[in-house]
């Protein structure tokens, strides 16, 4: 099952997409976007995993000890910050939309079509 962790990432992405496509609540939609984004964390960390290795911090490790890939961890960290801030921005838009439109149901937003 050495491919299983990668498949989890794909599964999480599709779950997020399904949620985004069918959600009737914009707060939930933004949550689904975060779910879709979690797939990137899963994939990055799975890619960097190394059997029998430990965290890439050498404060209490001998030099040369096997560690997992630090680069993907750094990428995931960047990814987390990006995701969190964009989520905040989108939620701010939802709050204002709720005030102006009186609904958070995306199916009832019909001001832009055609």
């Amino acid at each position, binding site marked *: 099952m050495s491919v299983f962790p990668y498949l989890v990432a794909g599964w999480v992405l599709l779950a997020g997409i399904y949620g985004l496509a*069918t959600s009737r609540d914009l707060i939930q939609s933004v949550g689904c976007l975060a779910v879709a984004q979690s797939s990137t964390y899963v994939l990055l960390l799975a890619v960097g995993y190394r059997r029998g290795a430990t965290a890439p911090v050498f404060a209490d490790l001998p030099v040369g000890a096997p560690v997992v890939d630090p680069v993907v961890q750094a990428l995931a960290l960047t*990814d987390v910050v990006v995701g969190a801030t*964009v989520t905040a921005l989108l939620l701010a838009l939802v709050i204002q939309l709720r005030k102006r439109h009186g609904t958070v149901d995306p199916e009832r937003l019909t001001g832009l079509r055609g």
Partner: protein
Amino acid sequence: MGPPPPTVALPGTAQLPLAVALPGTAQLLPLAVAVPLLGAVLLVVAGRWLPRPARDALTMVCAAAELACLALLWARTDDGRAVSWMGGWGPPGGSPAHGSQSVGIVLVADRLGIGMALLVTVLTVAVLAYSWRYFDEPVGEHGGVFPALLLLFAAGMCGFALTGDLFDAFVFFELMGAVAYALTGYRIEDPRPLHGALAFGIVNSLAAYGSLLGIGLLYARTGQLGLAQLGQALDTRPPDLLVVCGFVLVLAGPLVKAAAAPFHFWLPDAHAVAPSPVCMLLSGVMVELGVYGTARIYWVAFAGPGGVPAHAFRDTVLVLGAVTALTGAVMCWQQRHLKRMLAFSTIGHIGLFLVGVALLTPEGLVGTAVYVAGHAGVKAALFGLCGLLLDQYGSVDEHGLHGRARELALPGALFAVGGLALAGLPPFGTGLGKSLAEEAGGRYLPGLLPALFVVVSAVTGGAVLRAWLRVFRGAGPTPGDRPGEPETSGEGEEPEVHSPSRRLPAPLTAVPAALLLGALVIGAAPSVGRQLAQAARLFTDRVGYLAAAYQGPVPPAPQPVPASDWTVSGALLGLLSAALAVALALLAVHFVHRGPGAALNRRLVLPLRRLHSGLVGDYVTWLAVGLAALLVAFVAQR
């Protein structure tokens, strides 16, 4: 491995004791990102205390500094590439042979990349001049936030254009995205901007995460993140499904940003509702950066034997471009909301740009580059004129404004010129770009591709001219409503200024005029085309890019410099498009279509319009469908 020595300057740029005094290209590249970032910080901090005129002046100084930085970079890069390894983490030991052993991020720019960044900055300056006294910005402590966001937007776009690292491109992609969502939803009193910004944010972010998944897959295979290193590592083994999957996922972000059908649904919703000055940047250059990103990523990382075969990319992206162009043109013609009309016209032109890139020749590329530059000027000018209408009448509705803007002689003339330029009238830059791309396309699919260029530019230009005839000339009868059809009217807009003034602010006319003049110069001054032609030749030279990124000796590019001058046939086709546009506009205004046209409309056009439903769920579904289609296409042509 010891710490690598500090970055060596490019040959020809002497290392000076005071690097800032006369920076070389290696210093200018990061400066092009750092200057607007610092400017934004300055504005946020000083904007709390400075009065409005001082704040505007400070913003202009920052934008001018960025412009100077990029202009210097353009001049110094000449017909080569500027390379800069961030943090000095270049190839270990400074040896090009160890280029793939670096741990750092490299910025690599040829004149197409610098040109995109220059375009960003020129438009930012235009937008700043345009929005002088345009917005009732939030006053007091948040005084500098709007211009600061514009500068951050510029920084994100410049970073994306100049980087040579895939993950770094993702970061700057997200920077421009985040700023763009906020700017789109700027008018919080009106529900529609918020709706448009949300659709924009959700679809673009989802696509960006798709890109990141792709980056993860490619990293797992190659252990590289730099474009050049990735390309080199992929070439060590034959391509398999992993490469195809990674390629399509990585392209999800740029293609959604570029609004290629069926990833385009967010664009009209966002561009119709964003403040007009913001639209100038969104339509003028941000969307085009998606095309640029697609081309760059393919050429550097995937054009080798371990990547995606050229014929697969060419045929798939050609179809994608053609579908996008036709969708944009048909939908553009259907609009009465002027900004939405311009947004769909952007989609139509993006389709043409994609076709130009898909040809995978320097000729197609130089055509696209000139076209993008000309289009940016024209489209930004037209959005600026829409903002003027909004300022004067509180509406951008073609039907509601019928005959009302007759009093605006100069803006009316500019609007008409914009429509003709959009249709490709010589000697505008749009016309030259169209002619060059047409010629390149005609070599691959004679007749068909040139016809696509002519039709799409004529229909989009025609729609603008139709609106001009009605709004500025009061021609024809006022069109009736179309009950039962999905439609977005441009009436009842919240004014973008607090108290619409009767007196016309000068920048609202002057800036569009200057932008149109710029588009004219791009087409009329032969040196612009020649420099872009040199750049297009470098852009298509993958071996040279790799060598430059590793700071090794760059072999001369094998391809000849593509032609970049007007040809008789190109000029004639440009005139033909413009004439067709005028004819279409006159027909539409004076002879309201009945009979067979109506049936065609009901069968083909109405369903297409219904697909543009404004529902985020639909847009996400189309994103998934588009990705699946691309996967199938690339797997089948492997």
